[in-house]
């Protein structure tokens, strides 16, 4: 028995006045008030109103370690995204086209989300440590505290976020188009390449963007699994704020990072229709 409301809790005169544009204003207003404004203030804070150049902090942010961290973040972000997409695609493909136990398998995909990131990273750390299960079995795996470890860790953490959009977009593919491809003479792999893959691009793009954003901005992954050479931009921002106590520099780094990311995504948007793709989440 579904629950049915008979009388409006909103007075009629108000109902008549609320238009869809007002709803847009409500949503945008909320985000503006508690996000856009704070970020704008941060931009102001990143400027130097004391001695020296207004852009003092920016000049410093262009220096060695920070550029390294920026480059590293985007490279790790990119590699993680590719790796995650490959894993997520194989998984989602299996769920949509082969498995009979979709619900259970989907649940398993989201289960890790209930365990705090840090705990999961520690799990990986322990797993690959000499005293971990692999070490006990006599397997020497020299993986930890390398770039590989960081990327694998990030891929592990963000895999669930990639599976869901890809799963949705694969699920939306009309099975008849796959049948059509087979009848037209394409084998199974050819069909995947020519039909399934292109038709699931919205999901892939959505997953890719989300993972890229999350991975590029990672803090805990490199902190737990990386060595001295694996600091990413979030670690640098945290360090300048928490250790060096330099809010101006932290803000400048944050602003640069955001601008780079938005620019990157905008460029990407020019190639794929992101708005549409993100709808697949």
């Amino acid at each position, binding site marked *: 028995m579904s629950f049915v409301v008979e009388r409006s809790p909103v007075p009629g005169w108000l109902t008549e006045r609320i238009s869809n544009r007002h709803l847009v204003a409500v949503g945008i207003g909320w985000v503006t008030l508690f996000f856009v404004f704070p970020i704008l203030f941060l931009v102001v804070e990143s400027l130097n109103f004391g001695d020296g150049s207004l852009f003092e902090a920016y000049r410093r942010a262009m220096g060695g370690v920070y550029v390294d961290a920026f480059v590293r973040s985007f490279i790790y972000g990119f590699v993680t995204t590719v790796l995650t997409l490959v894993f997520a695609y194989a998984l989602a493909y299996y769920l949509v086209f082969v498995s009979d136990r979709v619900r259970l398998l989907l649940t398993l995909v989201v289960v890790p989300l209930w365990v705090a990131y840090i705990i999961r990273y520690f799990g990986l750390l322990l797993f690959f440590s000499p005293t971990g299960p692999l070490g006990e079995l006599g397997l020497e795996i020299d993986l930890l505290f390398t770039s590989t470890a960081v990327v694998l860790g990030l891929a592990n953490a963000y895999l669930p976020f990639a599976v869901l959009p890809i799963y949705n977009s694969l699920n939306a593919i009309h099975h008849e*188009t796959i*049948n059509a491809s087979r009848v037209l003479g394409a084998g199974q792999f050819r069909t995947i390449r020519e039909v399934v893959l292109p038709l699931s691009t919205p999901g892939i793009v959505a997953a890719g963007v989300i993972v890229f954003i999350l991975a590029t901005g990672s803090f805990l992954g490199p902190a737990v699994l990386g060595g001295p050479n694996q600091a990413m931009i979030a670690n640098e921002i945290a360090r300048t704020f928490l250790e060096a106590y330099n809010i101006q520099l932290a803000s400048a780094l944050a602003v640069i990072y955001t601008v780079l990311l938005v620019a990157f995504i905008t460029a990407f948007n020019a190639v794929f229709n992101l708005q549409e793709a993100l709808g697949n989440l």
Partner: protein
Amino acid sequence: MLEVTGLTKYYGELLAVDDVSFRIDEGDFVTLLGPSGCGKTTLLHMIAGLREPTDGQVKLRGEDVTELAPEDRNIGMAFQSTALFPHMTVRENIAYGLRMHGYDAEERDAQVQEFLELVDLPDHGDHFPDELSGGQQQRVSLARALAYEPDILLLDEPLTGLDRVLREEMREWLMTLQRELGVTSLYVTHDQEDALSMSDKVIVLDEGEKQQAAHPETIYEQPANEFVATFVGKSTTFDGTVTTVNDLPIVETESTRVAVTGDHDDGEDVSLFVRPEDVDVEPVSATADGGTTTVSQTGSTAPTAAATAENAFPGTVEKVANLGNRTEVTVTLESGETALANTPRFPDIAVGDEVTVTFDPESVVVV
């Protein structure tokens, strides 16, 4: 060309296709007709290799292909949903099968252009499917299925979902195309007009079983059983037992008698079917001897009409449906049966009128 033997498919417990066998000769257009859920798509998919038969065999050009993957069968198929690839242009859609069949770029372009013209869409090659109307999409789907010159074309209700006008147009167009190319075709539909108007042979399917396979005229005029008689075209139906009166065959129903023709064994239980277009309706007041019914056949009194050449029954008009070119009149006979008659358009008959329903014994189908 195509030979199907003992094809059977179980979905778990459900028997979707039950031991179906038939053959299609080179160049023929054969229709598989049956109600929704009778197993048509399943059958077609087994022929295409998209589903594995539980039992039975599919032969193409004499070769057993039952175990072959769909891509190795050289079959063309048009889907009810069109199943055009939404991410490819019309041209790319048509070229797809050609690429998979190893045509080189030049042949491909030529073939695509030829088929674009054949389906009357020479300027639509660079459109995407969602920019075309339903009928245009169906034509592209056909071009795609035919471009690589498959051995046989399978069509799964390609016209369902189109509106009446478009449907009739597409039907004509499809027939023309098929005759032009001479491609062997198996057409699946639940629409009897499609089946009767297009095919060399109609195979009627019900609940997974083949009911009859014959020329459209035979299907309509000599249905093999009650299912075929009622599913293909409307009918007035009587059930009864054959007796012979005055050397003429008569079927005695619970409450009346119907004159029929042909050789029938006395005592045989039969069903009778009369097509509405073979049935005439006349207002009682218009008959020569005004007053009440011309012929009374209530109860089990001796039939007076049985010996005459024509069956005539009194009744009351139940419904009058003007369908434009004709009017369908439903009459409840005094004997209890419901008779259907087609009259010329907008007749002077209204619901509640007392009428006489007549039909020729020749037009009665005895099953």
